[in-house]
């Protein structure tokens, strides 16, 4: 076969990794005591299709190992063996091993053969346990790969072994090998193995010439004449050897991995007429997957689409701007048509965005395993509660929150949840609970990781921070600020682990990751009761509803989600405070006034508060008044990252293109507030309240 199979490798890897995920999910359900035939079937299907694929691409280690795994799964499926925790454990680790093997193969690296061999030995041991040897399973009959899986052990049943080598003209004379095989199968249990060795490269392939050969085994008390009768019409055009299945082990029952590469490439190489039963069985198995109506599209294509839509949105807003000053009857019609266009654009944009959205369960799914394994290792009893795992998030966001979340959950398991005896002594249940909770709020997705463990010890955090010079003793810190100290870089060192129940390990990294996504992280903790970490993430990284605001010559985009209201300032509501700052009385609150022009060092039109506008913006529960010259239109803007070609700037979430082709910077309100507060922190407590 000279057909280049490497082009299919990536798809195979991708599908296999996904399949392994679903296998792991099913295994975890099994381990939770749910014994369900469908679950075992799912696991089996995964193992089977990976094995088939691996054999096709000659990843023999993977195929060989999976074969052993499959045999065990087959026994579980047939009810020959009970599902036990230790078996599930081995199966879970086998899944890991397969993943490792596949990714090693993908990267063209060496496979950890020693580890695989150990696992394989373990699988073998389990299978040899109750003398219940593997037996062929009727349901698996269709596939030669599967049919041969339990090879070796079974006693030979009576039957016939047939070697069927059709002549090249068989098809031209109207004989259909498939029909022959089908007829054979009515006589008794049929095992089919196709030999595609004679197939030329695709370019030289003549679909009318039959080059396939078959090794067949039909079981049952059948008369030789009956078998021969099946081949009656083809007899003159083929070589046919029919022999009784005897005691001697024969070449036909060679190990499955050897047979599989022969059978499977047919799917790729030959037209449908010549397709043997093996690929059919495979595709049938694939069709059985629940995600029937989906296609695989590369992210680049979707991003291209999204970009084009973004440009369209800009063009559309240019058109609207051009139409605005027009007058007359036609102008009205034009405007209403443009309004319609805008609605359609929004709909289009939303559907394109939705293509990129995935449920957060993609990330949450790894946690049952993590909690189970880590809990076991630490001897802690932990229950994981997951809610809102259907909440959808942009794929990019999803990919980037995986690691931070793992970190947080590990922290909760490792340092949050106490040992069972400690918990009992504290009057809590023996089982600790970690909950993952995801939900929509405003334009954001909130993810909360909470535990009912020991909580953070504020006195120790403060002591540590003083030692490290992160704070000075003369400043009175709010509870929130003390908790936030664990996010400070340099707070995450080994001795903190023992001192402050270990929280803070790499928490600065977690926070940085979340901030990079345009999200925010908050921590709540009650000593003795547990902690909650709340992460706020943008629904998507690509588009934002923005309010354009002008300061001098510059135009900034303020995210609408951050805006509370915009007001005209009156003199009597402004009070001066120390250090030249000003606060503004809004109903019963005093809000600090942030002058954008002085914060960003630009030349404004108005210096007097009465001439401009005050935008009340909110982030993380803090509100400030943002002083700008003028408000402009509201529009959806496509977020372009500043980081791609430059770097992150505190206070800026990115940039976007305006209708006139200019770049406008998008404000990051939490960053703006931080920027505003930071230089004053040493002096006084921010935000007089």
């Amino acid at each position: 076969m000279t057909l280049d199979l490497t082009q299919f490798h990536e798809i195979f890897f991708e599908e296999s990794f996904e399949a392994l995920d679903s296998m792991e999910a099913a295994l975890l359900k099994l381990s939770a005591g749910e014994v369900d035939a469908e679950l075992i079937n799912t696991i089996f299907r995964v193992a089977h299709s990976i094995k088939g694929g691996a054999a096709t691409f000659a990843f023999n280690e993977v195929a060989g190992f999976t074969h052993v795994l499959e045999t065990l799964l087959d026994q579980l499926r047939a009810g020959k063996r009970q599902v036990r925790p230790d078996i599930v454990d081995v199966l879970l680790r086998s899944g890991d091993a397969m993943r490792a093997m596949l990714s090693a193969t993908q990267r063209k690296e060496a496979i950890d053969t020693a580890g695989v061999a150990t696992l394989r030995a373990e699988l073998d041991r389990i299978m040899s346990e109750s003398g219940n040897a593997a037996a062929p399973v009727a349901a698996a009959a269709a596939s030669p790969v599967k049919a041969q899986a339990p090879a070796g052990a079974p006693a030979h049943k009576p039957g016939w072994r047939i070697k069927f080598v059709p002549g090249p003209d068989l098809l031209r004379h109207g004989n259909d090998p498939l029909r022959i095989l089908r007829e054979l199968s009515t006589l008794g249990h049929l095992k089919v193995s196709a030999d595609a060795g004679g197939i030329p490269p695709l370019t030289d392939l003549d679909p009318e010439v039959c080059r396939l050969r078959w090794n067949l085994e039909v079981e049952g008390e059948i008369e030789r004449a009956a078998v021969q009768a099946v081949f009656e019409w083809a007899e003159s055009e083929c070589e046919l050897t029919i022999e009784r299945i005897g005691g001697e082990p024969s070449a036909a029952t060679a190990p499955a991995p050897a047979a599989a590469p022969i059978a499977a490439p047919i799917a790729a190489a030959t037209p449908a007429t010549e397709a043997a039963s093996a690929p059919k069985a495979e595709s049938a198995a694939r069709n059985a997957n629940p995600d029937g109506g989906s296609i695989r599209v590369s992210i680049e294509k979707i991003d291209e689409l999204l970009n084009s839509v973004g440009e369209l949105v800009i063009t559309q807003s240019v058109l609207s701007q051009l139409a605005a000053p027009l007058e007359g009857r036609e102008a009205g019609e034009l405007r209403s048509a443009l309004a319609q266009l805008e609605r359609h654009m929004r709909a289009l944009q939303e559907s394109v965005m939705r293509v990129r959205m995935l449920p957060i369960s993609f990330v949450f799914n790894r946690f049952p395993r993590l909690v189970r394994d880590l809990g076991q290792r630490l001897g802690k009893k932990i229950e994981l509660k997951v809610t809102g795992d259907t909440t959808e998030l942009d794929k990019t966001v999803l990919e980037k929150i995986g690691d931070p979340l793992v970190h947080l959950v590990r922290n909760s398991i490792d340092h949050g949840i106490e040992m069972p005896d400690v918990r009992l002594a504290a009057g809590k249940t023996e089982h600790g609970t970690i909950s993952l909770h995801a939900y929509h709020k405003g334009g954001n997705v909130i993810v909360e990781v909470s535990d009912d463990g020991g909580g953070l010890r504020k006195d120790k955090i403060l002591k540590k921070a003083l030692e490290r010079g992160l704070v000075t003793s003369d400043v009175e810190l709010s509870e929130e600020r003390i908790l936030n100290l664990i996010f400070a870089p340099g707070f995450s060192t080994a001795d903190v682990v023992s001192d402050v129940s270990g929280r803070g390990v790499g928490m600065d990294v977690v926070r940085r990751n979340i901030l990079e996504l345009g999200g925010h992280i908050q921590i709540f903790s009650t000593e003795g009761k547990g902690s909650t970490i709340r992460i706020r993430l943008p629904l998507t990284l690509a588009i934002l509803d923005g309010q354009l605001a002008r300061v001098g010559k510059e135009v900034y985009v303020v995210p609408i989600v951050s805006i509370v209201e915009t007001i005209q300032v009156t003199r009597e509501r402004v009070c001066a405070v120390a250090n030249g700052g000003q606060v503004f009385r809004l109903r019963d609150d005093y809000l600090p006034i942030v002058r954008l022009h002085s914060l960003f060092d630009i030349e404004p039109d108005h210096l007097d508060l009465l001439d401009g506008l005050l935008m009340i913006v909110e982030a993380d529960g803090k509100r400030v008044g943002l002083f700008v010259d003028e408000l402009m239109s509201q529009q959806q803007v496509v977020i372009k990252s500043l980081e791609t070609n430059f770097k992150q700037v505190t206070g800026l979430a990115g940039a976007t293109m305006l209708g006139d082709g200019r770049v406008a910077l998008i404000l990051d309100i939490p960053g703006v507030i931080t920027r505003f507060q930071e230089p004053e922190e040493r002096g006084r407590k921010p935000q007089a309240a």
Partner: protein
Amino acid sequence: MSNTNANGGLEAADAQQFLTFKLAGEEYGVGILTVQEIRGWSQVTKVPHTPVWLLGVINLRGVVVPIIDLRLKFNFANAEYTDTTVVIILTVGIRVVGVVVDGVSDVITVGPAQIKPAP
């Protein structure tokens, strides 16, 4: 002898091409393969809290590209924006940046033997 060698180097595969440009009367060069395009000077959007030599960002066909004034970066006193002032768009690694120079001059081919270590 050394001359012919150098000439031979010009035709050799390891000879490099450089785009030369003027900065405060001096000639500078940049590897031609990093040059994406040359644009006329256009207004930029200022980015706050950045060094003075970072003039701001422009919209280059939908991509946000930072613009650096090399004359300010190199601490030259005179950074005027005239008719010949141009922006060279460079691709550096995965990043795209624009540099403002007084004007571009030529493309020269230089053999490895002609490149001396920096003073």
